[in-house]
């Protein structure tokens, strides 16, 4: 077992007065690809956003690369891909301008040198968007926009990728590109934690699946296999309740 890159112990979080995370334990080790699955409202996105410090905890602790998150400053090691929003900024921006912001964690005083511009270029090439570098992000399709957000995360050459529903609303062609990009990153030893609604084309990459329900860990182990009609081609939905019979069930409430 490698060192733990992400470690959550008894993490609790509330949105308003409603508990969203009710004691989550989760460890992601170096080189692992872990999928966070669950129905809408199960706490997947909140769990991800608590790791990057966007959601205040009401209990438990989080460590990144062995450092308590509160004291973690080495953000260049983390690449974050937020859930894509359709809300665009008020001012046009090119693909390169957006991807360059991902490099700021490595650029001292915000000055981008040649190596930084090269890294931005390389990130764009990985997601197949280099030919759109000078286009406005407003002119892109949903899938292309998602590829830009992933390039932005890759621009800092991170050791850990955290992605929130990278495949949501993405066309088939872009899904293939994203799967290939992720394969390349995993082959290079990058650790990945991603929220997925369904395993889809990423299934072969996933080492472990953690299924959440009502803010608790329901399953932590090998990715659940689709059964019955859902195993047929074209059906790759994941239904968390199908996994209730697998052996390593942990509710998270017990810890």
């Amino acid at each position, binding site marked *: 077992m490698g060192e733990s890159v992400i470690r959550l112990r008894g993490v609790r979080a509330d949105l308003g007065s409603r508990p969203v995370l009710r004691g989550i334990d989760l460890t992601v080790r170096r080189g692992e690809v872990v999928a966070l699955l669950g129905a809408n409202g199960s706490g997947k996105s909140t769990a991800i956003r608590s790791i990057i410090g966007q959601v205040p905890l009401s209990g438990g602790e989080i460590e990144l690369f062995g450092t308590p998150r509160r004291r973690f400053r080495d*953000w260049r090691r983390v690449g974050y891909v937020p859930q894509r929003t359709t809300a665009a*900024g*008020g001012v*046009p*921006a090119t693909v390169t301008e957006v991807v360059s912001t991902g490099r700021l964690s490595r650029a001292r005083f915000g000055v981008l040198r040649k190596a930084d511009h090269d890294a931005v270029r390389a990130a764009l090439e990985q997601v197949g968007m280099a030919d759109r570098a000078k286009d406005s992000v407003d002119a892109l399709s949903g899938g292309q926009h998602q590829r830009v957000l992933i390039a932005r995360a890759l621009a800092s050459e991170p050791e850990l990728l955290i992605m929130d529903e990278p495949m949501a609303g993405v066309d088939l062609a872009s899904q293939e590109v994203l799967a290939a990009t992720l394969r390349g990153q995993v082959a290079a030893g990058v650790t990945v934690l991603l929220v997925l609604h369904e395993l889809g084309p990423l299934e072969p990459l996933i080492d472990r699946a953690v299924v959440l329900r009502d803010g608790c860990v329901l399953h932590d182990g090998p990715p659940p296999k689709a059964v019955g009609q859902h195993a047929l081609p074209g059906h790759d939905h994941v239904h968390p309740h199908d996994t209730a019979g697998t052996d390593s069930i942990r509710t998270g409430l017990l810890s």
Partner: protein
Amino acid sequence: MDFLNYALMQRALLAAVLVGITAPAIGVYLVQRRQALMGDGIGHVAMTGVGLGFLLNTSPVWMATAVSVLGAVLMELIRWYGRARGDIALAMLFYGGMAGGVMFTNLAPGGSNANLMSYLFGSLSTVSPSDVVAICLLAAFVVLVTVGLRRQLFAVSQDEEFARVTGLPVRALNLLTAVTAAVTVTVAMRVVGLLLVSALMVVPVAAAQQLSRSFAATFAISVALGVTVTLSGTITSYYQDVPPGATIVLMTIAAFIALTALAAPLARRRARAAAAAQGDGDPAECTIPATRSAGDGVEV
């Protein structure tokens, strides 16, 4: 070009150029953050500073700077912590600031609201040499921040959550943006006036967007447009005896309308080029043959 011989006009033109640069320079970040009307709010708060300046017999420009910076910091804090009641708190800040300005100006010895008028709508003829020094120093600060920290400010304005994960000091940068906006308001106060400041922060940016695809180009075009309108407005007001602030703002809006009209065909051409670049071969729009031929079976 005889106007260049008057010291008064030289000061007015210098102040106008500095406003033309600084207002769109900070405005582009405010528009990107969808806080286009923040400048207007700060302008209201700055009135209390002007009033205090009259009352305490100190420079209204520096006093307005101090009060509007405080107001801007307060607005940013309300944005963090206020959430649900934030808009009510902001309303109280704005109108309290305006009422305070009127009150303090009236309390000042020999004060009347006629004095306040020159700050509300701008008055180039009363720009003193010490005002010009203050405006130059404040404008230098604004340029330093908006150009020197452009990548950080862009990142924070584009996606605050992502900026935090790149380790940027997001709160400090947000505060700095608010303070810079406040400083810009006081730079522009003597030229276009507190009530019209926001127009110069927002309209040149909106006009530039009609032509640009990138943030850098939007920044450059809006500053160029800002300088053009402030200079031409000031010169027009010299020859025609019209108020410079109002002239500048109306010219900016005219430029916006003209650029929007010009940009419509440009946008169509770009959409076609983008469709062609995607290689799907289908034109973006349905095409209708220009002329009918006999083969259509229609009388021509």
